[in-house]
């Protein structure tokens, strides 16, 4: 029997009751929101369950929503079941003032660099990460460039005419 979104959802709801919310299926991909403190429990369950087999973390990133109070930063996990070729996605929200999320490095080795990247661009503090430092940007950068309050453009430029760049 093929592993359908309905089965995955029932299994997760049996295990976690009401802790998982905002169920969606955009373009057929099961998506939900978990409590930020239970992110590791959800990941462990998805990894260990004999039918679910979500043992491949394809992507881990963050999104900044400045307008959502106390839920400014969403950390997104994309998981892949290689046996049945099914993908799911879930998010945890964390306030930007204290962006602490438990690290998934113990469960998925691939989370190591992806969490470093997420820290680099959004400043998410992954608790328990073995080596949480910048990975792509220069080490002496003093801000998190993908947060919405920082303009994308380089602020040190002096010789460029704003009108030429369509923002005069």
């Amino acid at each position, binding site marked *: 029997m093929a592993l359908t979104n309905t089965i995955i959802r029932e299994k997760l709801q049996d295990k976690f009751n009401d802790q998982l919310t905002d169920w969606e299926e955009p373009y057929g991909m099961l998506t939900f929101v978990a409590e930020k403190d239970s992110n590791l429990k959800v990941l462990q369950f998805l990894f260990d369950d004999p039918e679910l087999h979500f043992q491949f973390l394809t992507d881990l990133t963050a999104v900044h929503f400045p307008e959502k109070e106390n839920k400014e930063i969403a950390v997104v996990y994309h998981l892949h079941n290689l046996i049945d070729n099914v993908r799911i996605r879930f998010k945890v929200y964390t306030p930007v003032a204290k962006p602490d999320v438990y690290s998934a490095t113990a469960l998925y080795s691939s989370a190591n660099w992806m969490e470093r990247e997420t820290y680099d661009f959004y400043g998410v503090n992954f608790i328990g990460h073995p080596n949480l430092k910048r990975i792509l940007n*220069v080490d002496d950068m003093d801000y998190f*460039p993908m947060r919405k309050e920082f303009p*994308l453009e380089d602020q040190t*430029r002096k010789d*460029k005419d704003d009108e030429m760049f369509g923002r005069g």
Partner: protein
Amino acid sequence: MARPVQYNINTKPMENPVGFVNNGPDGFSGEGFFATKLNDVVGLARKNSIWPLPFATSCCGIEFMATMASHYDLARFGSERLSFSPRQCDLLMVMGTIAKKMAPIVKQVYLQMAEPRWVLAMGACACSGGIFDSYSVLQGIDQIIPVDVYVPGCPPRPEAVLDGFMRIQELVGKESLRRRGSEQYQELMTSYGIQ
């Protein structure tokens, strides 16, 4: 009926004929000798034996490969040998986008070159950051090292690179032997935090 001519059949005289006699430095010549200033002789020797160091990071590098190859042939200008060791080079050619993380490496390469050394910035990115007005891209390599010639374009045609290279030759040929020891030069280097 004659077919229309598709190429220019009128020969055009060269503006600056190539050759030492017409193009060489001022001086006294007589039967079997030529006397001129040491400055000019050194300039002449240097400008016709420049060893470039290509520092190519993106598409401008591809354009430079075309410049090096047989069709455009950088070797015609005395640069037969491109060196990939900065310690032997005279001219640093920076071609392509330089990310902020790459900046210390460009500077290190520049510092490893022996004096006298020149720098050519090729393409919009190396000159000014180009379209990459972004938190991660250096807005022109002149923020970290002094640049002698800027070649604009995105990417520049090989002709433009050769034009820039000939301007470097002009600078090299006319440079005073005292320039690198002068106070202005020291000030320039100090403004970049070198020495």
